[in-house]
């Protein structure tokens, strides 16, 4: 398997702890574009600042018309859906909420799946609703890889559970094992 081009992460209730564990465990050599959609924050620049001290990679709020950058974590702004254009530029929308959420994980996953197709890893973490499940299914249909946090160990199990029910997963792991898996998948050398 060739290394993916991007990793898209969706999380909701309990996300601060979960993101700290994952971003702290990522290998700083990663060249993938990281996208995060997190429901819980109304202050995304504050969230970025909170996560920055734990993250091995630079972390920024995604901006309209801006290019998605490899080796950087981009967080969806509060109150806007985050989408990607085919040329890897970000686009925002204030369309209706999806599953009571804006930003919605489904919207971000759908859009990322359209752009990166099979070169994408989708990750669903802790959360108390079912956002992300449909989007994860689309990622799998396009040939991408699905990773879901084990519901039993999640602070809020509903979201990973819904993802498993609707999309299934290629990997279902406890929080602590997700970053090491992503490192393995992303740094793997293609076989020749």
């Amino acid at each position: 398997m060739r290394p993916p081009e991007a990793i898209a992460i969706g999380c909701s209730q309990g996300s601060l702890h979960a993101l700290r564990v994952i971003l702290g465990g990522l290998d700083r050599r990663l060249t993938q574009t990281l996208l995060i959609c997190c429901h819980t924050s109304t202050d995304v620049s504050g969230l970025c600042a909170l996560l920055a001290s734990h993250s091995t990679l630079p972390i920024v709020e995604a901006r309209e018309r801006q290019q998605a950058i490899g080796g950087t974590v981009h967080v969806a702004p509060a109150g806007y859906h985050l989408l990607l254009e085919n040329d890897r530029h970000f686009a925002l929308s204030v369309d209706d909420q999806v599953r009571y959420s804006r930003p919605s994980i489904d919207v971000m996953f759908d859009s990322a799946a359209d752009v990166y197709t099979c070169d994408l890893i989708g990750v669903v973490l802790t959360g108390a609703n079912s956002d992300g499940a449909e989007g994860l299914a689309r990622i799998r249909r396009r040939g991408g890889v699905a990773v879901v946090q084990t519901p039993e160990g999640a602070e809020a199990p509903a979201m990973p559970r819904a993802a498993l029910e609707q999309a299934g997963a290629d990997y279902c792991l406890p929080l602590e094992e997700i970053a090491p898996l992503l490192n393995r998948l992303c740094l793997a050398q293609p076989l020749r």
Partner: protein
Amino acid sequence: MSTPLPDIELERIEVDLFVSALKRRYGFDFSQYAPASLTRRVRQLMHVHHCDSISALTARLLHKADFVTQVIEGLSVPVSEMFRDPLMFRALREQVLPLLASYPRINVWQAGCAYGQEVYSLAILLEEAGLYERSHIFATDFNPAALKRAHEGIYPAKDAQLWSRNYIEAGGSQSLSSYYSARYDFIRLHERLRKNITFTNHNLVTDKVFCEAHLVLCRNVLIYFSNPLQDRTLALFRDSLVRGGYLCLGLRESLDFAPAAADFTAVDASQRLYRRKLQAPSGEHDASA
């Protein structure tokens, strides 16, 4: 025989054909909309109208002339609140209205007014500043159904609580409820707020300068446009504004990348509040002088 095309490539062709049909058959031009959101809305239309494919949606659009109204409504998805982003409205109240007060007549253009929540918010701001009597608000949209709703000024009562909080945060001096009457599950904005508002059709993609404005608001519209269309629209706003007039964009929109940026200065960059320069940028011919 050619190889099968991946779904995603097929869908791109279908969306292109849909956009082309809409333009050639009905004159609505979405070809310069940013593709990601447009594709999402077209998919939604397909599901809502129980079509098996985007091509089936296109066929229906071509052959059933009355279907276009629903398609346009589905493609414009007007979502807003009264006093959305209250700090922006506070900035208008505190930094812009006192300066507009020096004009004998004040023209305000809200481009892309959708269901009108922000138009009525503006009317309230102007009234509280004692300026409404000499102001005129031109509220435009390309979606006739949205304009009709905006003109009615009727909204679900369940939204009023959030809007009241926004209003107070925006520096409101009354209670928002003094501007509407509530009946059953709806609120209706008072007729007097509508007195100096003209609701009218204008399409930012195809139409030209609309009026001579002292303040232009266009919030969360540009995010749906491609870069060239954003640039064109911002130039249109510049040309509509008097020198020293104000421009207000959505909180995640920016003037920075557009050529028209040279003609504006930031009044409050965090609230996306800009002012057209009093002088033309050096070396440029001033057509309005």
